[in-house]
């Protein structure tokens, strides 16, 4: 086991934003489809898409969740706001659009009965500053003490380091839908390795239809299911985390 003799102050501060039981924990993503997660054990958290925001040119379109969601009583819920850029029009990231996007994300993120917020925004390389701007502004707009998480492409945590300036409490590198470069990462994880960026080692995102030979379990594990969760699939995810 590695013994780091120093922990950065930033990492220590951020480590306090999630509950003390933050590692390891199972979080099931509830995506844009009818989701009944009421059979999940109370310790299993649910990260549900509550808002969808699309940026198109200099305009914005958003809507709330369209599909039913059921969770177990007392389950910790994370409001996920998915943001995407319409690539058919050049993005005009003006101060006005930035402010409207932040307002939109906050409107969907700060819903009753949700305990934390996650931004799901997979930007192309040319728009990384957009994500950083948004994370900064959402952080500033959230009630104090609200944990803020963000999803990340695995390559951001592996071969790049621009993500270090994201003012979030948690980065969730997603080890699925990796594309052609993902083989190296999966092989590295299979060999017992970890993400190059230490900020990406507190959580991980996996998918039910993308098997990994091995991945670090000493952290919060988010699980994506391309279909609506069933009791069997939920049980399988629970068992997989703690066989």
């Amino acid at each position, binding site marked *: 086991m590695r013994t780091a003799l*120093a922990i950065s102050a930033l990492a220590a501060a951020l480590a306090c934003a999630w509950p003390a039981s933050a590692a390891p924990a199972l979080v099931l993503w509830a995506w844009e489809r009818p989701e009944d997660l009421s059979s999940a054990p109370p310790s299993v958290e649910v990260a549900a898409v509550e808002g969808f925001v699309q940026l198109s040119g200099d305009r914005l379109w958003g809507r709330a969740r369209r599909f039913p969601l059921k969770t177990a009583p007392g389950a910790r819920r994370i409001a996920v706001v998915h943001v995407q850029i319409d690539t058919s029009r050049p993005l005009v990231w003006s101060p006005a659009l930035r402010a*409207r996007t932040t307002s939109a994300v906050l409107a969907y993120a700060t819903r009753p009965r949700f305990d934390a917020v996650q931004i799901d925004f997979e930007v192309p390389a040319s728009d990384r500053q957009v994500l950083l701007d948004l994370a900064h502004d959402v952080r500033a707009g959230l009630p104090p003490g609200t944990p803020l998480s963000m999803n990340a492409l695995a390559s951001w945590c592996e071969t790049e380091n621009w993500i270090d300036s994201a003012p979030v409490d948690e980065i969730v590198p997603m080890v699925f839908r990796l594309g052609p470069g*993902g*083989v190296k990462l999966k092989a590295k994880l299979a060999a017992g*390795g970890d993400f190059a960026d230490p900020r990406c080692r507190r959580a991980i995102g996996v998918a039910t239809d993308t098997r990994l*030979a091995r991945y670090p379990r000493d952290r919060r594990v988010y699980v994506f299911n391309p279909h609506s969760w069933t009791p069997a699939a939920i049980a399988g995810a629970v068992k997989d985390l703690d066989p």
Partner: protein
Amino acid sequence: MRKLLATVSALAVLGASATPSIACGPPPLGPSYVDVFGDQTADLNAFYSGRIGLVMAQSPRARLYMDWRMLHGQPVGAAAGAGLSIPCCDNPDPYIWDATDAWLKARAQVAGVVVNTDTTSVVTDLPLPDGSSRPNCFQDAFTSAAATLNARIASYGATSPFVKAWVDAQDAVFTACGGTAATLPPLPANAPDWLKADRAYQAAALVLYQGDNATAAADFAAIGHDASSPWRPMAPYLTARALLRQAKLSGTPQSYSAAEKAVDALIAAPAGSFGQSDAAGMARFLLEREAPPKALAELDAELTRPALTANAASTFRDYVDLNAKTTPPPEILDWIATIKATTEGAPAPDPSTNQPTQNAVLQRAQAFSLAHAGSRWQATNDPAWLVAALSLVDPSDATAPALAAEAAKIAPSSPAYVTAAYQRVRLTINTAPEAETRAFLDAMLARTDLSTSDRNLFIGQRMQVAEDEPAFAQLAVRIRLCADDTGADGCVRSKFNEEEEWTNIYDASGKTGLGPDAMALIDRMPLAQRAALTTDADLPAEFRLDIGLTTWTRAVLEQDDGQINALSLALEPLLPAEKTNLATVVKTPSGPAKRFAEFFIMAQMPGLATDLMSYERPSGSVASWQGNWPDWMILPKGATNGDFTPPCLLEYTTEGICEGEGDVSDAALWPTADVVCLTYCGSGAAPMRLPDFMAARRDQAGAEWKSLAQPYHDNDTLGSPVWEEVFAYANTHPKDPRSPEAFYWLVHVTRYGHTHNGISHRSYDVLHQRYPTSTWTKKTPYYFD
């Protein structure tokens, strides 16, 4: 408004979004050389104009519908094609926030109004008890309100108390959008007629948004009978809309009948009447619920008409949804399901079972679908069914030779020709004479009408019959698709999948890359053949670097000094940051010092690997090189007990994984894997053919692997650790200027890579005790065992 967004499926008429707008999950990700979604703008436009190209089984269903039309000589056209190429129908109200913004700006002009600039405070979706929401107030409501208010301001002034009363009432109406209780404020006692007429409209809108559809319909109908109301022209549409909402909620025959009458009235209204353009969608919605067979017949007629309209995407979407339970399915949906190996009645794998079990079920489904495709082809002689059968058949299947022969009969003028050509080569490449296959593929590649994706696929096949290494090198390179992350190239795949695009695997321009099939074959070449590629000027420098470094690593682990020196010389201009160290390797005689020089480079380069899939290209300065050092192990020179194998073929496919798959040896996987089209072209296996020049030296590669040890993993003790040798040499050569840096790297390797035996602490101790003032010591404040 974009043309795409003008198409609204019947299911979206009342704001019911039937499928997710967020792109995630199947269809496939692509690699960057093959695209099931249609490539970039030029290729998409050519497709819409009739250049069908290769039919790919894993294309989205709407694209396969377009393939079906073209296979039957029916055009698609750009208007329909653009909509059919992307996920359909999920954005009925794309600019609602602009509309609410305009409304807030309009009301801010009125004296006495509490100004509100927060667009997000205008909630347009109605929360539902089940955790979802539905759109309640649409863009046109806000646009209309803003326009009306501006007109009232123009007529009566922003300081008019009646205009203020108008705004107060409209605020209450819009409050109801988000489900908040609201009542209209009392009408001023001396309200003018215009305000009374507007108030009647606002009252009807309020009850509509509050869900009292029947009352709303009656109120709108009353407005329709008021000759003095300026809202009279809108009444038929709004009445129909309210009754449609009621029908959807209550589902009673009476409510459907009332809705139908209202929609008929709207259709019969004078041309250009307000909302009339929505009438067709409303009528479709009603028909689908009241008379599904009739609705299906109408949809079928629209989808098979000689010329498609811009609504084809929403029509196809409705057609698929309404046919969800139709058995047997209509022929076009039967064909689409079959080409995807999901023919009605085919077994489906249980995701809770292990992968080998799922694979066995998938094979049965493939066989089932192939049998169906074959029988349909025999019964109809329809080339579409031959295309389906060809995509499903394995080369080892008993029916393969006959199907390949049928494919050979397809005329070049047939829309099925390109598909038949690719599949025929796939089926015969390991049995037909190499020269014959070469000539056929050269003729295909000489065509000027292949899409980039199709061309890459034929290049991949041609590579398997390459004459020699130089020819192989040229054919190993593929043209990258969809490289522009701004979307300017017109690629639509990002609308289906949020995939990440990895950098550092293409040439300097980002426009070409090594095909995964090429990498699989290169990784199976003997050392000398791989080394020859490093100096092949036809390969971009970046690929020569990649192949050179992975080959150099193998040469080091095999202790082949001849190749080590030759490759070091070749790599010097390709990797200037290591020029000095590589030169040191060359000029150092064989022995421990030379090994140290080699291992020193390995310590600096975390991305080194013995295969192209695990390797990470060094980019920028040494300090910025990315990767994860393996725990290298080395066998004595001449050893024959090595356990090295290149990555299993599945690793060269997207999302491929070798562990847990059972027997993943080349012997097991070669007949079944598809590293060329990555199963996107169909379920049929695509066993590669080793070019003759490679096959002749296959045994040599196997012999070389026996002198290589895999990196240390889970107490695997074969070989001796490279990092220990680095430590030992640096420890006994304290005056070697590289020694402090070597200790630094050994600690670094432990932190970000893999080692064993507590080498980090030992290196840290030597570094700090022996070189207290070295910059390498200053950079090493911790150890990481």
